[in-house]
């Protein structure tokens, strides 16, 4: 259950693995299931387009505290505001942090190091096996190591977000499950979630869902317009 995850959830992964789409969907589900206050921080300092701050309005409409660039939304060099410290300290909050991709995106966590208590922090690694740099077990483990090295945190769960965008079929997700399960077996890190976009994966059935690891999350696109 999403509500059983640790208080602070940091969403990381390879560049282009779908972290932001997952983080926003995760937030919308968590806010529905939990009575606790929820803050969402866009700490993506890597991407120039497709950042969660672009859906600030939608996130705030759900009663989520949105923390994002204190400079302009479309700025080249976003600034993470001082407010991002608050939910680490204020235990009344559940906190979701959407990082930029790769170890470069993880660098931003450095400044919060003193405030991150690993006991109350989940560090989820989003994986799409159709991205060239995470297409097999070896590559996934290499990226995992890079993310851990720059953050000083250990990955606590994989998210199977394997997809071919609007061309995704359930077989693609099953392939992702097979590959990430092997990474999971080697590392002992569970696959916490498997995602699929409801309007896209039309051949998803309850039998297939039963074969997938972790909790299966039906997502919708927040970051992608219908013509994308």
């Amino acid at each position, binding site marked *: 259950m999403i509500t059983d995850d640790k208080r602070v959830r940091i969403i990381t992964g390879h*560049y*282009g693995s779908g972290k932001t789409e997952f983080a926003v969907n995760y937030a919308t589900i968590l806010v529905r299931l939990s009575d606790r206050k929820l803050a969402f921080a866009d700490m993506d300092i890597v*991407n*120039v*387009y*497709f950042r969660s701050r672009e859906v600030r309005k939608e996130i705030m409409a759900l009663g989520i505290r949105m923390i994002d660039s204190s400079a302009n939304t*479309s*700025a*080249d060099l976003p600034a993470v505001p001082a407010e991002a410290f608050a939910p680490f300290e204020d235990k009344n909050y559940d906190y979701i942090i959407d990082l930029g991709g790769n170890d470069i995106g993880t660098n931003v966590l450095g400044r919060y190091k003193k405030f991150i208590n690993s006991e109350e922090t989940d560090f989820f690694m989003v994986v*799409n096996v*159709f*991205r*060239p740099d995470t*297409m097999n077990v070896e590559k996934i483990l290499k990226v995992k190591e890079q993310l851990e090295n720059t953050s000083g945190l250990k990955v606590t769960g994989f998210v199977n977000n394997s*997809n*071919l*965008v609007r*061309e995704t079929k359930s077989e693609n997700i099953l392939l992702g499950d097979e590959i990430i399960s092997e990474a999971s077996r080697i590392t002992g890190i569970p696959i916490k979630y498997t995602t699929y976009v409801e309007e896209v994966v039309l051949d998803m059935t309850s039998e297939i869902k039963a074969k997938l690891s972790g909790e299966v999350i039906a997502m919708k696109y927040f970051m992608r*317009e*219908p*013509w*994308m």
Partner: protein
Amino acid sequence: MAKIIMKGNEAVAKAAIIAGCRYFFGYPITPQNEVPEYLSRELFAAGGTFVQAESEVAAINMVYGAGSAGARVMTSSSSPGIALKQEGIGYCVAGEVPCVIVSMMRGGPGLGTIQPSQGDYNQATRGGANGDYHIPVLAPGSVQEAVDDVKEAFEIADCYRTPVIVVADGLIGQMMEPVELEKPVKTRNTAPKSTWAIGYGTREKPNTIENLVIDAPACEQKNIRFFKEKYAVIEQNEVKYEEYMMDDSEYAFVAYGTTSRIVRNAVNELREKGYKIGLIKPRTLWPFPQVPFQNKKIKKFLVAEMSMGQMVYDVQLAVGDKEKVTFYGRCGGIIPTPEECAEYAEKVMGGGQ
């Protein structure tokens, strides 16, 4: 080969490597930074040379050098960066140096915004270099098309000994989509390097690349040769466009790149309401397609661009009747929605279902 997910800029870079490009010279600028970022890592691994030059001006002149020596070479930039390259692009034209220039457009003028735009249509098709010239301009509307166009751009560049521009708005560069990298493209005949490239001549007859034609009649002859033997042939052979829902259409949107995707959704929406409207999508901006605009059944051509209106003039020229051409655009980094395009079209069509 199975599809993978790539960001447009990465895919452009990978496509260049697949096409045999082993030299890249560039300078960072958003929203195309993933092209040099990717190549700085992967081009080296492929045995090539990547140089982050001290400026765009330096980069295009390195392109001039590598291209003169017969290498497949590429540079990429975005709007103000492409502006800086203009002089060098003109030199590549005059020296008949094959090279590929990727232009990921952002909102201008000047430094502008990093958000996507199509405001550099004129910059690509008319250019800012001096003299009489044309450059083939390919306009992808998806990550797959960007891959195909980059590969094809090298073929066209080598075949006609000309720079080729691949122009896309920043969104194509930033978007993640499934791609098939190994999809083959049409190959073309090319002149053997021994006939022109520096270093491929003989001791007695070394090859040279020349820009200066100091004798006026010779300079005129060079221009005439370019237009008769090069540009006329390109216009004959290299025009590309696509049509969507045009069979029974009485109205036609005209759009390229990202705007063509948005308008396509608007067409679907309008078709559901019973409007006979389709889409003409130029895939080459120079040479600009002429045939689809000779369609006499079309009452109005609705040009949509992410600019204040630049391609619209090419459409007017192709249609030959200004009254039949209307324009809708958003600019400065704003992306239009299918709904606003459909609403605009309904106004133009005046309920003509």
